[in-house]
């Protein structure tokens, strides 16, 4: 491929309804870009209908890794305009953007044209009709691919992959792709993507949910109890055959209460266990998580956060489960909370959570979200991490074995059913060192201190946060806001403004000393999060020390926080 200067990122929205097939076209476009050596990601947005609804495939293709959507879209390609005004807020356009629609489908909605966007026309439906057996979305694929600078052969290779052997539709689809490519030549030029960097290491194409499932298996999870809930279901669906392949098991439970209790039961038996859910499910699981704390049984719950509270906005992202994750159990019940900060990081974060949970014999919550979970992205192949779940085990036939022995680290060597001589009863009631129920003050205080100590004293290493850059201004954030923050900081750097980024991966137990060290010399802190109540900010103020002047930039979903918002907040530095 010729070296080509150009933009480093191109954002394309494919929209349509009633079976137009834009999601499929978008997935294929992303895969073609990946094959051609580019990075990229795709977010899906839909109306409430189960079939035939209005749909938008929101893509960003780039010459370097990208972790968030851009501030605007360069291209919108619309098979039709029905109900698309619904997506106006999600597809910001300006005078430089180009919108391509089908002249037979009427005029684009005002919500899209009022930004002065340039318009062009391609008769998708007519062109598809002229190629018997073809579909408009294949024309769109060819058109979008050509405008992005993707070779036609790469597009066709992806289309070929989706067909079963001997399927006659393939030739028609090829012809449609070629027609789309040809149509691109007649259109005003779109920004061209810069040539992709040569792949230094292999790359993967996957969603955060798939990455989390993979991380779980790498971490040693071999039992999963599953109850479907948007947007976590894909983790469980990926794990169903995967676990069977590695000698584990996935069971579909009747509800979240059953799921979490099944997972805890399996873990009591010595098998690293996990379940995945979203806000409403996590709320149901809180009682059992307290049991896991008290009985010191490891278990991992992946919470793929969505719009809340209550049933909320199930198919949209938000970061509003901080409160319940770090504080939501009754009693004094310390637990581990790990927040992946990118799609690729869902793998390492989940694997780490399994490791921590098993090592510290405590429940761990992985705080992912719908954006990370359901966005498909090209990522550098995640490094192989050496750690796995490793539960410290007692020697069999330990004389006078105490399951909840008061050790210096707070971690007591565990016994597992099958181990002779060390039988004990795991206990949710407060208990003494042997695990016998006790209401004595001495035992309660000792066990509370032990459970707190074991988490607090553990050395979490550098993985607790990602700290980048220098400066006397810092952005502190977590999870999916990290990608947007990083891009904002890159822009600030171009202005000559040096800003530090702290993306916290270990939310609980709090690491106040580490954060203080990371913010040494910082005079202004901007806390960024995607929720209405500034939950992360309040948590930081409660459990950490923040230097200098602190501003909170927070907004609930469903719209993502974009790089430009953070950049302007840094530049203008006033209360939002």
């Amino acid at each position: 491929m010729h070296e080509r200067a150009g933009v480093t990122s191109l954002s394309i929205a494919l929209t349509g309804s009633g079976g137009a097939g834009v999601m499929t076209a978008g997935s294929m476009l992303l895969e073609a870009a990946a094959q051609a050596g580019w990075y990229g990601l795709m977010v899906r947005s839909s109306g409430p209908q189960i079939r035939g609804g209005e749909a938008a495939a929101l893509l960003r293709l780039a010459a370097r890794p990208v972790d968030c959507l851009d501030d605007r879209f360069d291209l919108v390609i619309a098979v039709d305009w029905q109900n698309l005004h619904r997506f106006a807020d999600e597809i910001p356009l300006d005078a430089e953007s180009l919108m391509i629609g089908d002249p037979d489908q009427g005029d684009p909605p005002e919500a899209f044209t009022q930004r002065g966007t340039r318009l062009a026309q391609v008769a998708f439906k007519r062109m598809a009709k002229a190629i018997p057996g073809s579909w408009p979305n294949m024309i769109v694929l060819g058109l979008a691919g050509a405008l992005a600078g993707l070779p036609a052969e790469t597009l066709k290779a992806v289309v070929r992959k989706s067909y079963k052997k001997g399927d006659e539709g393939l030739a028609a689809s090829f012809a449609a792709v070629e027609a789309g490519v040809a149509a691109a030549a007649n259109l005003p030029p779109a920004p061209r993507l810069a040539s992709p960097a040569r792949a230094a290491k292999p790359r993967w194409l996957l969603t955060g949910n798939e990455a989390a499932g993979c991380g779980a298996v790498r971490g040693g999870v071999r039992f999963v109890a599953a109850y479907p809930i948007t947007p976590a279901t894909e983790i469980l669906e990926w794990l169903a055959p995967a676990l069977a392949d590695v000698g584990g098991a996935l069971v579909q439970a009747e509800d979240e209460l059953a799921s979490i209790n099944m997972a805890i039961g399996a873990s009591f038996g010595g098998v690293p266990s996990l379940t995945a859910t979203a806000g409403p499910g996590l709320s149901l699981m809180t009682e059992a998580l307290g049991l896991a704390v008290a009985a010191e049984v490891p278990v991992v719950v992946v919470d793929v956060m969505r719009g809340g509270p209550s049933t909320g906005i199930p198919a949209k992202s938000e970061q509003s489960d901080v409160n319940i994750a770090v504080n939501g159990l009754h009693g004094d019940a310390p637990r581990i909370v790990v927040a992946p900060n990118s799609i690729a990081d869902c793998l390492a974060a989940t694997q780490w959570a399994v490791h921590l949970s098993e090592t510290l014999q405590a429940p761990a919550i992985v705080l992912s979200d719908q954006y990370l979970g359901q966005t498909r992205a090209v990522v550098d192949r995640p490094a192989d991490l050496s750690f796995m779940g490793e539960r410290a085990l007692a020697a069999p036939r330990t004389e006078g074995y105490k399951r909840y022995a008061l050790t210096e680290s707070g971690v007591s060597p565990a016994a597992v059913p099958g181990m002779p001589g060390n039988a004990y009863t795991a206990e949710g009631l407060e208990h003494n060192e042997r695990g016998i129920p006790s209401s004595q003050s001495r035992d309660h205080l000792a066990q509370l201190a032990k459970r707190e100590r074991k988490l607090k004293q553990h050395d979490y290493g550098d993985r607790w946060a990602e700290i980048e850059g220098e400066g006397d201004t810092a952005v502190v954030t977590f999870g999916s806001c990290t990608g947007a923050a990083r891009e904002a900081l890159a822009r600030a750097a171009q202005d000559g403004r040096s800003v530090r980024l702290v993306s916290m991966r270990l939310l609980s137990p709090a690491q106040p000393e580490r954060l203080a060290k990371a913010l040494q010399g910082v005079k202004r802190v901007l806390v960024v999060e995607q929720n209405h109540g500034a939950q992360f900010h309040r948590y930081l103020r409660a459990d950490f020390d923040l230097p200098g002047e602190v501003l909170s930039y927070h907004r609930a979903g469903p719209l993502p926080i974009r790089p430009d918002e953070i950049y302007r907040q840094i530049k203008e530095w006033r209360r939002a």
Partner: protein
Amino acid sequence: MTAAAAAAPVTWQAFKSDYKPIWCPGCGDYSVLASVAKAFATLELRPENVAVVSGIGCSSRIPAYTSCYGFHGVHGRALAAGTGLKIARPDLTVLVAGGDGDGYSIGGNHFLHACRRNVDITYVVMDNHVYGMTKGQPSPTTEPDWDSKLSPGGTGLRTFHPLVIALAAGANFVARAFSGDPNETARILAEAIRTPGFSFVEILSPCVTFCPEQREWKSLVRPAPVAATDDPARAARRIMTDDGFNIGVLYKGVRKPYQPPVGKAAKRPADLEAGFAI
């Protein structure tokens, strides 16, 4: 509204709201909505005196599509919410509605106890043998060999017998209906609502998106060959041995409904304090 208009019975069309259902075209739930509206109209109820309580899932969207008071609660707890409502407000007609996933899986425990408690409510389950809202996972009534991503190759588990379980748990009225016959369904619903105590109506309602094979159901259903019995053991035997496609009222008992006598104060709050005085 004039007094005359206020007194005129409400037509079944007026029991539907202006919100258009998001159910897939061809879904059995459209017919169930019509049947529910027709039942309410036949009984000469008024929308303001009816509450439709639901959980989460495709079927549970129904309250907003009626012009009655509605409660779209959390997954699986509709029977609990409906029970609380009816006990506190016995003057209302309470219809609890949902799907087989919401009702028999996460809602299973509440289902048992609602049958046992026998509060005067009607429970409608739109059974399509699948979790529709979360992309097609098996539900407790799904056939054991139905392939899905979450249970590849099928669950291998025996299906639930919700009607038999209802009987065993003490339900006072048990019926099966089919969305493909909306007027018969309306008739069964009206009888269910009219019958005091806990009335359970399972409505076979095909899912056109995830279970296209259920189009077969319309040729498999038949009117139940015998009339309803008031003998629970006989009803249980019949239902255990039928193929799941007998339509009609299958059991109708005479258990007295559970309803504490709310609203009648025998004492004043001040009277309760007499015992504290020294």
